[in-house]
Each structure stands twice: as structure tokens, then as C-alpha cells.
């Protein structure tokens, strides 16, 4: 026999101002099976909870309906209250009369009757609630960090320092990411490599960190605390255990046709190469596509010159399977393709470069050894034009609608460094708005304009063209001076929009982690849970969650690490009991549920059943409750009504609908 108690909350004036709470409590008190009904100012307060506990004891309640805010706010609170009062926490239902009623309605009469209807539905549902028991699962004390840039390295170091094992998977042959390619860092102008490489070395030497470079995540299965991941370790064609990193192979390689990725393709590298001097691991990799041995079968010079006999042309990709308790996405960023921006002449004119290319040109380890030389003829440019917002804040479909956030500052840095090293240059910056809201950022940008004499022009470049004599002409507007100007430039640097790395999308699918339309990973809450994905056990670090500079990335990396440590420090995790369950008597074995399940939680097995006509063996659906997320897709897809979601059974939902329609 159901004995239901109804508790209507005023939420101060949040609910009471638009809903007649007394009337709601009285109306719901007359419902069938309701033996207690009351209203109170704050049901979630100590006193409110005491009221519920006392009512449970005095009236021997079997079910509780709380008419209050969204279950997202206080469902957990009231379940705990129920549990303390001695009834199963899953015998509590919330009627959301705040977000779904008082906050959206002004007419008190209509809002009150709607609140009563919502309360009735919850009462109808709770009649069919069954006590559910929370399961438990173990936690694998190892974390996986996907991406070995500054975000991934910092996250891994923080997790490892707390005493937990952590693996970094990096698709490139070395860790370091984009930061390794940068020259100086704003606003302090310290050298990127000088502050990054010690961290790279620390990550490589840390007893708790294992690096999988030149590797990619191929498959992710499982759930929070118990992920099972397949990692493809691509063949380097170099035996890592034998290689001494002497580099003789790279020196002898006769192939010189491959664009050097580390220098953004501005110079060439051999087919066997170490990406850069401080690469970690300091082990070369063979680019089979450009290797003469792979293409023609003849050569093998690297092998002949390898004293350690580490070259192995027969090496194959290796699949590694490992278990993890938590996964951190730290896939970073890339810059957009500029093919759609014909007006800037990128690729048409060699002296129009991206900012990342300019970083390499200015870097002492870059293709020009740090001398400012333009790509076309190696001459030192005298007039440089920087163009900001190339594809950022663009809703025309050619670029990205968001602000890339880092360009204003790195452009100020480039302009300042150019003027510092080459005082005979003229430097122009076309800008829409200069966005410099970080610590010491605006001061930095103003220094570029005031002390270094960088000409900031409020306006945009409309066209870059060749005047017929090989001169690069930049035509743009200065909208403060209200004039159009044409600058004869020696070099143009485009601040191309930054976008999430291409690998993020497929990784998001593997992790069942949600993403926005720009392929940034979505956080569980934009303010209060910024480093967690809505998918339990998946965390976010760095640019893959949204545009960030280095200090922000490092801060977020640390925050993600703390969340991972919090998870790994637990021995057991409580699981959600609201999972799918199949009735083997009704199941027709059609496999629909297996096909729609996004988590791979459903398998088919033979079961002995007796539906009254005698024992027989049938192929029926079986739900792995540990893997099930309780999304309900299977229950909706089941044509025979065999599949039900605990806590949200068809019977409960129909009872709610009936109550609403009564």
C-alpha cells in the first residue's frame, strides 16, 4: 500500500511569488494515496529536511514527492534525506515547480494550476517507483592524457606528482606541441623552449609517466573508473631500445624533399629525422612516404650508418591495450586553412606568411637561424604589415565566429620583437579591436605602440596584390583617419584563426564526450565545472575546450589534474542504478537495442525461459549495468516493450502522462 507525502517548497519568493503554494499543498493532499501534505519556506534547509524526516516517521510514508526546484539542484539532497529517514532514496520524486513553472509564468492562477498538475504527475509516478540499490565499481589507478603539448604535459606532471600512474599519447614523434614551435611568450618575452623543454624532460623522466609518442588512440571502451583503451603505436622504423639518438642517420639521408613540419614547411628535412634538437624522445622516425628505401627498395644509407643497428624497415604498427580510470583530452589547436581568403594572397605570394610561420622565422632554431629574412629572396624586410582577425570573428562561413583570443597578444609580441631587433623597420598592425584583458597584457600592447613605435591602424586589409614590379601592395582602411591607404610592404603576417585540432572530432566520438559546433569539447558546466566533460571520467585540458593562452592552459591543466586525482583517489565508485533492464520473457531478440546503444552496454545471450508454454532457449538482450549510462535509447527502440529504464519505466512515464492529461 502506497503512503505518499507531499512537500511543497516556497523557495523564498522564487516559487511563492508566482504560485499559491498553500493551494498546491491542499490540492495535492486530496490525491489518492497521499497521506501527508505540507508547505515550507525552504524545503532544502535543515528545518525543511527535518519536516520531511518527521513526516516519514509519523506517517509511515513509502514515497516522497517534493514540489521544488529542478532535480538538478536538490534531488541528491532529498534522496539523502529519505535515506536518513529510513526509506529508499529512489522513492523520491521531484516536481519542478520553479524552473518549469514559477520562473516562466506571471499569472498566479494559471501557474498554481500548472504546479498542481506537475505535482499530480510526480505522485502518479512515485506510486510505481521501486526501491533501487546503488551499485559499486572499482577504479583503475591510472590516467590517460591524450595530447602531449603544454596542456597534456602539465596535466600528466600534476597527476604523476600526486603519486598516480599516467600515460601520455601524442600523435607526433615528439611531445611539446605548438608551444615548442613558439619563439618568445607574451607578455614577459621569455623563451618558449627555455620554459617548456625542462617540463618535457621532467615528463620523460618521471617514474609515474609513460610516453606513447607517434601513437594514436584507436578505441575507447568502458566507463568512469574502468576505461579500456586501444593505442596504435605507429611504426617509427627505428628500434627505440637500441637508438642512441646520435642523429647520424638523419645527416646521411639523401632524401631532402619533405617539408619540415616543425618549421611549418619553411625548410626541408630528410626522410629520417628528429623533429627538433630538444625532441622527446630523442629518437628519429622514418617518413615512409618520402623514404627512398620504402619507395624503390634501394638505399638504406641510414641503416648502414647506424652504429647501434637501430634501423628496422620491417617494423609494424603495434596495438597496445591498457586500462585507465580517467581520461584527459588535451588535443590542442591548429590554425585554419586560408584557401578561402584569396584577398590576402597567402600561398600566391611567398612573403605573405602566417604568424606561426613568423614564429619559426624569428626563432634562433628556425629555418633562418633567427634572422628576419623573407621567404621569397632572403632579404631583410623593411616594411612589415600584420593583419589581425584573419578568419576570426567571421560569420560569413569562411572563418570562425569566435575570437581566437591569442592573436592580439602574439601580434603585439611579433611587432615589438621586430622593432627591437631591427630598428630600421616600419611595422604596421591592422586591427579591429585590440583585446588585451590579461594580467600585464594591455601594458604590453601599449608598450608596442608607445615605446616601440608600432603603427596600429584601426581598420582591415581588403586586398593584397602585386603592383606588377614584384612589390607587395597592401590596401586597407584606416577608419579613424577615414582614409584608405596602400602600403608597399616587404612582408605580410596573417594572424590566422585558431581552431581545435582535427583529431578532436573523432576523439570526441570515441569518448562519447559532447562537442560544440566549432569542435571544442563542451564542459559539464560553463562556470562551475569547466574542466570536466559531461561524460563521467573524461576531463578537458587546454585549447581543446576553448581558446586559451599558455598561462590559462597551464592553470586549466592543473585543475583537470586535480579532478583526475580526486577520482583516482577513490577505491570504489557508486554507480547510477537508473540503468536499462530487459525482460527476457518479452524480448524477441531483434537486436534493435544493441544497435542504438551508444555505449556498447548491450549484448545478446542465450537464456532458458518459460513463458507458460514450456521451457525453451531464446536469444535475448542482456544489459551490462556497469557500462549502461541510463540514456534510455534502447527502451525507446525496443519494439516489444521488453526494455525498460529503471526509475523511468514505461509504466511510470505513462502514469505521469495520464496524470497530466486527467
Amino acid at each position, binding site marked *: 500500500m502506497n503512503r505518499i507525502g507531499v512537500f511543497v517548497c516556497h523557495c523564498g519568493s522564487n516559487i511563492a511569488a508566482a504560485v499559491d503554494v498553500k493551494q498546491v499543498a491542499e490540492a495535492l493532499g486530496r490525491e489518492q494515496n497521499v497521506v501527508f501534505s505540507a508547505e515550507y519556506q525552504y524545503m532544502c534547509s535543515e528545518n525543511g529536511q527535518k519536516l520531511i524526516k518527521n513526516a516519514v516517521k509519523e506517517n509511515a510514508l513509502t514515497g516522497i514527492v517534493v514540489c521544488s526546484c529542478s532535480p538538478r539542484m536538490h534531488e541528491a539532497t532529498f534522496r539523502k534525506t529519505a535515506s536518513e529517514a529510513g526509506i529508499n532514496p529512489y522513492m523520491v520524486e521531484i516536481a519542478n515547480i520553479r524552473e518549469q513553472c514559477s520562473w516562466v509564468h506571471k499569472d498566479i492562477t494559471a501557474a498554481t494550476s500548472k504546479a498542481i498538475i506537475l505535482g499530480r504527475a510526480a505522485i502518479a509516478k512515485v506510486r510505481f517507483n521501486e526501491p533501487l540499490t546503488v551499485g559499486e565499481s572499482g577504479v583503475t589507478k591510472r590516467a590517460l592524457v591524450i595530447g602531449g603539448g603544454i596542456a597534456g604535459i602539465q596535466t600528466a606532471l600534476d597527476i604523476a606528482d600526486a603519486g598516480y600512474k599516467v600515460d601520455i599519447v601524442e600523435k607526433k614523434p615528439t611531445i611539446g606541441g605548438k608551444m615548442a614551435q613558439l619563439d618568445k611568450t607574451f607578455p614577459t618575452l621569455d623563451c618558449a623552449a627555455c620554459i617548456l623543454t625542462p617540463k618535457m624532460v621532467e615528463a620523460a623522466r618521471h617514474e609515474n609517466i609513460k610516453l606513447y609518442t607517434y601513437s594514436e588512440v584507436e578505441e575507447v571502451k568502458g566507463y568512469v573508473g574502468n576505461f579500456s583503451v586501444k593505442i596504435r603505436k605507429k611504426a617509427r622504423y627505428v628500434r627505440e631500445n637500441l637508438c642512441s639518438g646520435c642523429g647520424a642517420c638523419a645527416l646521411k639521408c639523401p632524401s631532402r624533399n619533405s617539408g619540415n613540419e616543425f618549421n611549418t614547411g619553411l625548410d626541408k628535412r630528410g626522410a629520417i629525422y628528429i623533429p627538433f634538437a630538444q625532441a622527446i624522445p630523442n629518437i628519429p622516425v622514418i617518413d615512409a612516404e618520402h623514404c627512398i628505401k620504402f619507395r624503390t627498395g634501394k638505399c638504406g644509407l641510414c641503416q648502414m650508418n647506424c652504429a647501434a643497428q637501430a634501423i628496422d624497415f620491417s617494423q609494424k604498427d603495434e596495438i597496445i591495450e591498457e586500462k585507465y580510470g580517467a581520461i584527459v583530452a588535451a588535443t590542442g589547436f591548429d590554425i585554419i586553412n586560408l584557401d578561402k581568403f584569396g584577398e590576402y594572397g597567402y600561398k600566391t605570394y611567398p612573403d605573405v606568411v602566417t604568424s606561426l610561420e613568423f614564429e619559426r622565422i624569428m626563432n634562433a632554431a628556425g629555418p633562418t637561424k633567427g634572422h628576419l629574412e623573407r621567404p621569397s629572396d632572403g632579404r631583410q624586410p623593411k616594411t612589415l604589415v600584420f593583419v589581425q582577425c584573419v578568419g576570426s570573428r567571421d*560569420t560569413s562561413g569562411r572563418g570562425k565566429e569566435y575570437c581566437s583570443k591569442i592573436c592580439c597578444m602574439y601580434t603585439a609580441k611579433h611587432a615589438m620583437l621586430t622593432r627591437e631587433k631591427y630598428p630600421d623597420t616600419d611595422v604596421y598592425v591592422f586591427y*579591429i579591436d585590440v583585446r588585451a584583458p590579461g594580467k600585464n597584457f594591455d601594458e604590453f600592447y601599449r608598450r608596442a605602440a608607445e615605446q616601440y613605435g608600432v603603427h596600429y591602424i*584601426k581598420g582591415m586589409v581588403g586586398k593584397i596584390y602585386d603592383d606588377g614590379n614584384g612589390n607587395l601592395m597592401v590596401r586597407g582602411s584606416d577608419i579613424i583617419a577615414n582614409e584608405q591607404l596602400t602600403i608597399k610592404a616587404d612582408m605580410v603576417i596573417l594572424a590566422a584563426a585558431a581552431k581545435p585540432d582535427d583529431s578532436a572530432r573523432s576523439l570526441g566520438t570515441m569518448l562519447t564526450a559532447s562537442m560544440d559546433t566549432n569542435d571544442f569539447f563542451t564542459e559539464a558546466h560553463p562556470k562551475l565545472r569547466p574542466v570536466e566533460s559531461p561524460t563521467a571520467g573524461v576531463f578537458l585540458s587546454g585549447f581543446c575546450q576553448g581558446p586559451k593562452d599558455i598561462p590559462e592552459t597551464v592553470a586549466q591543466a592543473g585543475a583537470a589534474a586535480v579532478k583526475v586525482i580526486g577520482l583516482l583517489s577513490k577505491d570504489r565508485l557508486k554507480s547510477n542504478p537508473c540503468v536499462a533492464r530487459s525482460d527476457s520473457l518479452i524480448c524477441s531478440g531483434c537486436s534493435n537495442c544493441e544497435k542504438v546503444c551508444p555505449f556498447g552496454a548491450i549484448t545478446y545471450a542465450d537464456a532458458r525461459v518459460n513463458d507458460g508454454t514450456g521451457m525453451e532457449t531464446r536469444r535475448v538482450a542482456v544489459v551490462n549495468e556497469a557500462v549502461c549510462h541510463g540514456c534510455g535509447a534502447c527502451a525507446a527502440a525496443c519494439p516489444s516493450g521488453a526494455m525498460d529504464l529503471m526509475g523511468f519505466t514505461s509504466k511510470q512515464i505513462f502514469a505521469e502522462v495520464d496524470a497530466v492529461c486527467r
Partner: protein
Amino acid sequence: MTEYDLSLEAIRMSGVYPERCMKCGKCSGACPSYGEMEYHPHQFVDMISKGRIKELMESDSIYKCLSCFVCVERCPRNVFPANIVEAVRTLSERRQGADRISPDTLTEFIDGDTPQQLLMAVMRKYSK
């Protein structure tokens, strides 16, 4: 019609939301007629949204615009400055030579080769 209403009319006719403009000035950076124009593409967008259409209507700029649409092509925010110039020009023409063409005179142009769409466009543009 007040100047403000006239501006609203131009906005309505052009089908443009000038508020989308983020004032980057790229339209004016690309405009090949910039030097000839008293008011430049970005000013058309700015002034129309502030209800200052009279100065634009009385300026030669509306005839200096080539209607090349490079401002439209380059705009990162889908503002269509050329469409605003066109709307201002149309309003100016309608006002000055009200009913410069009427359904009666239009019959002279009907020769079987002239597309009907052209005749309709002429009617819309040159009559009140």
C-alpha cells in the same frame, strides 16, 4: 517621412541588419571607388543605423559606388554594405524624379525580347 523613418525604409529595402557590423572597416579597405567617394562603405552602414540618411542621399557617393560587391564579398559579418548603398540610391532616385516611369510609358519597351523581370525592376526603381 522623417529622416529616421527614411533610414528604416532603406534598411528594410536592403534586407540588411546594419547592427551586425563589427566596425572592422574591411569593406572600405577593399573598395575600389574609395577615393572617389565622400562617404565610404563602412560609413554607409554606420550612418544608416544612426538614421543619418539625408547626407548620404545628397552625396555623389551613391553614384560613385560601382556595385562591384567587393565589400559584400569581403565582409566577415554578412553585412552587405553594397545593398545599403543601393537602397539609399533607390530612395534618392524615387524622391527626386518621382514617377519617372509609369505603366503607360512602360508599354514602349515591350518588344518581346525585354525580360519581364527587367520591366518590373525598372518600375520598382523609378516610380513611387
